[in-house]
């Protein structure tokens, strides 16, 4: 097992000194590795990173995000993806290559206000994120409850190898779609299960940085210990 050292940091804190590789949220100043945000620093064998506890969503290619249609242009939809950039979904992605702006009406397929599970196909500094729905489980979301959490806490909600989300899904029989942008859609046939799942997600958002969170969530959901031993400690 690799030894990982964790510590609470704020911007400007020196996490480590030496020949290490700065990863996410770490700034290199000579030999010093400096945290650039409030979070939990992790020192690995040859790299350093900080898990942020605050901040917005920065799009990354291949991320699954949940977007809300905010507008259309003749050739594409514009999406609010809870980021400083607007996501673009080309009309051809939905209608196919023979899309014609004169023949097809974009709003018949996706109207303003619709929630859509999409994947970020491409994003770089020079242009806004390009979205796609060409994949399994992507497309318009017809039903469910939208819960918004801080994007920085999404990894905690998923847990190691999906352990946390599996625990919630099994205990509540809910289906949870997690967007990396912090937008989560929970659908469940049983209204009590839905409420419990929403409560669990909100609890993780509030207590993301505390240790033994899996145990707390389990006790809140009434899951007996030992059913899913995949605990996370950070």
């Amino acid at each position, binding site marked *: 097992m690799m030894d990982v050292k964790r510590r609470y940091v704020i911007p400007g804190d020196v996490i480590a000194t030496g020949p290490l590789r700065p990863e996410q949220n770490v700034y290199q100043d000579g030999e010093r590795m400096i945290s650039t945000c409030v979070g939990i620093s992790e020192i690995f064998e040859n790299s350093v990173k900080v898990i942020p506890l605050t901040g917005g969503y920065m799009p990354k290619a291949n991320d699954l995000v949940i977007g809300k249609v905010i507008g259309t242009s003749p050739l594409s939809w514009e999406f609010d993806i809870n980021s*400083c950039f607007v996501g673009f979904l080309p009309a051809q992605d939905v209608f196919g290559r023979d899309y014609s702006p004169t023949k097809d009406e974009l709003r018949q397929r996706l109207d303003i206000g619709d929630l859509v599970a999409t994947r970020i196909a491409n994003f770089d500094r020079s242009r806004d994120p390009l979205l796609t729905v060409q994949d399994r489980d992507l497309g318009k979301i017809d039903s469910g409850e939208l819960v918004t959490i801080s994007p920085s806490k999404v990894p905690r909600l998923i847990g190691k190898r999906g352990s946390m989300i599996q625990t919630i899904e099994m205990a509540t029989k809910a289906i949870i779609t997690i967007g990396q942008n912090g937008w989560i859609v929970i659908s469940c046939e049983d209204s009590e299960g839905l409420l419990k799942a929403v409560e669990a997600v909100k609890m993780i958002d509030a207590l993301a940085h505390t240790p033994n969170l899996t145990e707390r969530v389990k006790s809140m959901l009434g899951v007996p210990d030992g059913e899913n031993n995949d605990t996370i400690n950070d």
Partner: protein
Amino acid sequence: MVKTMTQLMTEDGIRCDGRRLDELRNISIKVGVLKNADGSAYIEFGKNKILAGVFGPRDVHPKHMANPDSGILRCRYHMSPFSVTERKNPAPSRREIEISKVIKEALQPAVILKDYPRTVIDVFIEVLQADGGSRCAALDAAAVALADAGIPMRDLVSACAAGKVADRIVLDVNNEEDQEGQADMPVALMPNMGKITLLQLDGMLKPEEFKTCMQTALVGCKRVYEVQRKALMEKYFQNGEQ
């Protein structure tokens, strides 16, 4: 003149508000006080009461201000009409425009803007009650609000003034000392990097006095940093054990 100086300080170096020469006023900072802002902080620096809110990164309006290579930082320092004894006209004054500019320039070296091209980070500072040294207090609150918003920063920015009152170098000049004293020098520091991001001087100092004044201000900045750090730690880690 002599009469004023004796009022500002006693023979044994006790200042008009009872502080010693190297003593700061009481500082308290609360983080995340505004729900609708992405990041916020409220500071009480002596009798100064200042609120800072941060929005962004977000779309730039007007669009022509956007920079395709990096984000931009905008800052607005504003004094409420009730912040001073006589009603202040709420329209931005020459002084407020200047302070907005120097605060922006003091924060800019700390904020990593290159990760957010075509966007803006807006910092709004509202002075609810002013009592001398409000630009330093505003800067302290703004830096904490930026960290609360999750804006990537190389370091926090801590600011504190030093000055010359009754021929003595003092830390953290208050309103009376600012009005009647001989010099006021606000300094902002990135404490971990040891870099100064703001240095202004109103008044006159001899070279050796300037050096002492600078040292005094830097000590003050480091003490302010401890308060900022504690405030952020309390907000984010109060439920968890290290």
